[in-house]
């Protein structure tokens, strides 16, 4: 069986000829169907860039990305039909402030999938109530707490029925009390079999939820292993050092 997502020797750099900065350096990674992969690593290690490359928001310089065995990174390919199949949630929510929660969620199903308005509304309300947000349907994003906004952002992505979810430090902008409610949502998605790649600083959560953890450093996947192995017996000294620093800051 082919992996749901396969990242094959991807390279990505920013900047011009003279100030070239390699951000992803020969990154390879496989995510099986229903698997959850966590990306950990210091700020600036390339986690967000990798997720943005998977969602084709950034073009890659070399290598290939396969979704269900099909190369989606081929230059000149129409990215829109592929993005429809991949849900993405951002650290800063990226909700549309001029639309109500309901409009945020139904925009893509109606405009992209051409679902009937009433039908999209129905589905959105159902998703909202599943995530205890039913009473917020008419609210505007600015009227919600950070945790609620992030849950709405997740619902917005789920409304497209994605085959793969990419979550980029979705709890990083939240205060500790609100982190829990968002993590619960991710747990639910996992239990329903969603394939996910998530960048996170919540090590305890990463350990609990993932099938595989990747440690990135300066754009290189230094180590990729099941959580029990990576967190208890890291193969690399640098992984151990990173974990120690995280433990010292009280996030494990």
């Amino acid at each position, binding site marked *: 069986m082919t992996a749901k997502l396969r990242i094959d020797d991807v390279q990505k750099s920013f900047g011009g000829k003279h100030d070239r900065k390699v951000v992803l350096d020969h990154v390879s990674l496989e995510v099986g169907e229903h698997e959850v992969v966590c990306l950990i690593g210091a700020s600036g290690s390339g986690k967000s860039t990798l997720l*943005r490359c998977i*969602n084709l*928001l950034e073009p890659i310089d070399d290598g290939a990305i396969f979704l269900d065995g099909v190369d989606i990174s081929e230059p000149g390919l129409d*990215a*829109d*039909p592929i*993005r*429809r199949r*991949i*849900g*993405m949630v*951002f650290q*800063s929510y*990226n*909700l*549309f*402030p*001029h639309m109500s929660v309901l409009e945020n969620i139904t*925009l*893509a199903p109606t*405009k*992209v999938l051409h679902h009937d308005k009433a039908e999209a509304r129905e589905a959105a309300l159902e998703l909202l109530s599943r995530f205890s947000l039913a009473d917020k349907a008419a609210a*505007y994003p*600015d*009227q919600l707490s950070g945790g609620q906004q992030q849950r709405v952002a997740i619902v*917005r*992505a789920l409304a*497209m029925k994605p085959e793969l979810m990419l979550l980029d430090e979705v709890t990083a902008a939240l205060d500790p009390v609100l982190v829990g409610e968002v993590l619960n949502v991710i747990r639910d998605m996992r239990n329903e079999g969603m394939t996910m790649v998530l960048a996170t600083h919540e090590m305890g959560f990463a350990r609990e939820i993932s099938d595989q953890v990747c440690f990135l450093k300066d754009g290189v996947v230094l180590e990729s292993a099941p959580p029990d192995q990576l967190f208890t017996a890291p193969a690399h000294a640098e992984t151990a050092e990173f974990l120690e620093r995280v433990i010292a800051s009280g996030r494990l």
Partner: protein
Amino acid sequence: MTEHDEGADNVSAPSRVPGQLTRREQWLRRRRRRSATVALASTALTFGIVIAVVTGSSGWPKVKALFFDPARFKDDFPELLGYLWVDVKLFLQCAPLIIIWGMVIALCRNTRNPVLFPLRVFAAVYTDFFRGVPVILTIYLIGFGIPKLKLIEGDVHFLGFGGAWNSPYLWGPIALVLAYSAYVAEVFRAGIESVHESQRAGARSLGLSQTQTLRHVVLPQAVRRVIPPLMNDFLSLQKDVALLSILGIVEVFRRATSIKDKTFNFTPLVAAAVIFLVLTIPETRLVDWYTNRQRKRTSGTVIT
């Protein structure tokens, strides 16, 4: 947990007596009254000083007779008011076209498609040109120049403009539309650029195309953001409609000057000024009301 905590629990907030103001409400009311009094007093004082200085000047009696003749004002005001509709109509014809054409220019300037590069250049040259040339010159050149080309003989009708090809009622508004679109396009462009890149990323990640993203996510936010500066441009358009009088369109200002030329008294011009104020002040209030409503509707708290 500690004595300290229990102690804190025992201090109950002052209980609320129905029909009686809380301490905070009393304080707010006192503060409101005080600011109202101060505002009133300072306004009265300022106006008092201005009036005293003006009416005390040696030339005042002459100015008063020449500019503020009550009898003439009473005669001229209603007559000029009759021409108000001409100004309003010209404004109403120009405004929608300016919005559309300004938006087209702004979108041209924002195209990222290399095929459309010539459009970008055109839009840039267009805005530079029309913002650089004084509006009154644009009106002169287009209003008098194009009809002289005699491209068409006879009548044309377009969106309520119209009549004869060389009618000032056709070319005057077109000149205004061309000039004002350049300003409005720049306002729209600034609005479009002010929408954060993460909004585009959010929309594109959902599978929306570039056009859908522009249409449903970027433009609505951009337009909302620029409505106040846009309204400013339209306020000045309302006044600049008077410039069309140089082409021979008889509206409030033109009529006022011709009365002045007959009577050698400037009071009709003061009356015209009053008419323009009556027209524009409600418009400014409307902008304020709109901006406030928008802010209240989409955000939890309004910081005053």
